[in-house]
């Protein structure tokens, strides 16, 4: 599959900062993938998200979106291909009502009003928020606010959506809800998702995991590749997934399960087989 995002040797240093926030970062993302970007607080994850959307100008290196290099001249066109959903649901509302907010990005593109109305309606339907169209954002729960933010982004029909810890301020119900909606939308709309997250539930369902440490990508791989070795995970900002931790601890306790990477249902199957042998 063609890569949709290509970063080559990208570096960025914030003004007055002693160390670069990103250092020689190279990364290729294939289209329609779900990429989880992980790392400790302050490892450069949000910076990475912002340079991709051209919100911060890179010092050196190149960024290509859909094969086209990102430059200051084509910034606004390129940005139309990327939607971002941020961490704090209260800090990203521009419109005074749900529908006004969803329309904001469309207004910026100068879309005619009747077309906007259709798009807003469609987008709200996708996130099941049609009934709230005229409500003020303050009356919504955190999860509902993030749904509206998602609607505002998909109304622009981007090819890539970047989630910058979009579920970290939600309660477990809100978190599951947003994850499910994003999974459905990814299937339906064939989008690429880059998700910055600490949530293990989200990380283990990703196609690719990218681990950042002190502004550098130190590891990329599939869930299986990353979690087959549980050592040093917490230093990288990861927890071992429950299944892998259990598998390792069972082995340490003398229960003869295999060392090979298992997902939850495979581990359960193996435990059942062990039980039948007794």
């Amino acid at each position, binding site marked *: 599959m063609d890569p949709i995002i290509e970063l080559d040797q990208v570096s960025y240093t914030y003004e007055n900062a002693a160390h670069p926030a990103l250092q020689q970062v190279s990364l290729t993302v294939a289209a329609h993938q779900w990429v989880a970007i992980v790392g400790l607080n302050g490892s450069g994850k949000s910076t990475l998200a*912002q340079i991709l*959307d051209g*919100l911060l100008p890179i010092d050196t290196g190149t960024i290509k979106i859909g094969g086209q290099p990102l430059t200051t001249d084509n910034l*606004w066109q390129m*940005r*139309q291909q*990327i*939607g*971002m959903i*941020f961490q*704090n649901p*209260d*800090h*990203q*509302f*521009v419109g*005074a009502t749900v*529908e*006004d907010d969803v*329309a*904001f*990005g*469309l*207004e*910026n*593109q*100068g*879309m*005619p*009003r009747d077309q*906007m*109305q259709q798009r*807003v309606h469609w987008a709200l339907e996708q996130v099941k928020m049609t009934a709230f169209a005229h409500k*003020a*954002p*303050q009356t919504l729960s955190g999860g509902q606010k993030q749904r509206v933010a998602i609607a*505002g*982004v998909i109304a*622009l029909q981007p090819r890539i959506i970047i989630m910058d810890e979009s579920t970290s301020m939600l309660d477990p119900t809100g978190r599951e809800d947003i994850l499910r909606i994003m999974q459905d939308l990814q299937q339906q709309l064939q989008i690429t998702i880059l998700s910055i997250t600490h949530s293990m539930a989200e990380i283990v369902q990703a196609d690719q995991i990218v681990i950042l440490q002190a502004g550098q990508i130190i590891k990329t791989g599939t869930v299986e590749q990353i979690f087959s070795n549980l050592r040093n995970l917490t230093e990288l900002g990861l927890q071992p997934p429950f299944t892998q931790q259990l598998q390792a601890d069972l082995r340490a306790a003398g229960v003869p399960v295999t060392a090979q990477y298992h997902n939850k249902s495979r581990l359960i199957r193996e435990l059942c087989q062990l039980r039948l042998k007794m």
Partner: protein
Amino acid sequence: MGKLIIGRYLPGDSLIHHLDPRGKFVGTFLFVLIVFLANNWETYLLLTAFVLLAVKLSGISLKFFIKGIRPMIYLILFTVLLQMFFTPGGDPFWQWGIFSLSKLSILNGLFIFIRFLLIIFISTLLTVTTTPLQMSDAMEYLLKPLRIVHFPVDEVALMLSIALQFIPLLSDETTKIMNAQRARGVDFGEGSLINQIKAVVPILIPLFVSSFNIAYDLSVAMESRGYHGSEGRSKYRQLQWQAADTWMLVVFGLLAVCLIGLRSY
């Protein structure tokens, strides 16, 4: 804060609530002008009847409006008394130095008192039946001619509408910060004046920091959604002028005509 009635919106479903905010704005402005046409019992009676009818139509209790006067009552009484004692002419039945009272001056004071009430009632009616957002939309529309002199009408309107929206958020933030500092041993409203002023610092600084954080996050979010100034933007929210709005202005016109007919010359 809780006592100020003007400027607060009360949700409702009345005829007045549904009128176009631009019309209400213009109507209120017109009313403030034509109040000055009244100069006798008949005209004031007509105006009072008109205002009471409008209040009735809004479905909001008159008590609410009367409460709204309370914060301003001293200012009103002061002005009225000034008028009473210093109006020359008439037959003064009481005089002391430069102060004098006559039947005419008492009547005059009373009329001014009524005029104040009517103006306060009608502007309260505008704000309680119109959301802040509708107000900012109406202002944006009515200020459009200023674009000719390069006044950034759209930017100002967007700014206003965002600012209105973030007021509840900042007020929550203030409560939260105050609670956090109280938990760390700050007593608000206790001790000497200097201590009380000192107690404000631990609230103001975090509040500034939060406001800047919100502003920064919002600006990044807006930019990521393609906002680059008002040029080339289309508009989703539109105000709709209906027959009822035209009728309202006609009623104001008729009122003015009646007043001109009834006033004494």
